[in-house]
């Protein structure tokens, strides 16, 4: 069965500091991996996706993620966070023809 684990429920980071959000997945075939961001009371916005090819993918808002098959991980990074990056972040694995399994999310708080 497919599963997605985001080990960190909550992360606090200072503005200007780097950010890394962890995601581990369990899926028997080639994974299709996604990161979404959700601001309070809003829908989810796609940050980036990995289907194949280069294992380091660039997304919007200065985010990047690296796929590591050996570790079954797809961690999200940003070199320098802005106050506007405070939100909840979801990792997801797509399987079958388009069904997704989402992680439980990581809440990011940015302090001045």
């Amino acid at each position, binding site marked *: 069965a497919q599963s997605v684990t985001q080990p960190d429920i909550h992360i606090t980071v200072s503005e200007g500091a780097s950010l890394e959000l962890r995601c581990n997945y369990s899926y028997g075939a080639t994974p299709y991996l996604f990161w979404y961001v959700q601001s309070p009371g809003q829908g989810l916005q*796609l940050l980036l996706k990995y289907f194949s090819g280069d294992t380091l993918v660039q997304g919007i808002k200065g985010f990047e993620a690296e796929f590591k098959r050996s570790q079954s991980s797809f961690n999200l990074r940003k070199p320098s966070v802005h106050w506007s990056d405070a939100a909840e972040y979801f990792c997801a694995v797509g399987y079958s023809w388009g069904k997704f399994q989402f992680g439980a999310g990581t809440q990011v708080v940015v302090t001045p």
Partner: protein
Amino acid sequence: SQTIHQWPATLVQPVGSPLSLECTVEGTSNPNLYWYRQAAGRGLQLLFYSVGIGQISSEVPQNLSASRPQDRQFILSSKKLLLSDSGFYLCAWSVPSGRVNEQFFGPGTRLTVL
């Protein structure tokens, strides 16, 4: 460009009352459509998905039902709401290509059942 709408944005309903949430997509044809429920701290749970008019698949047994009366309209319903139906409901769509594609989400509906 494609857009997805949900309404209402917020809803407060008494236990036992009916429910109807609507989702519409513009700018695309024959999309795959999805209903998710998001409970606090628990991520997103897929409730229903649809690959075409009148074609609905249910992911979990529950007090809810879904319908797709038109190509770009997806409705979530209940005959009698339970307290446990409270949550944030998200509609999403994806391109129907027979492979995995990103899903695009609507703004959501906050449902509170009292």
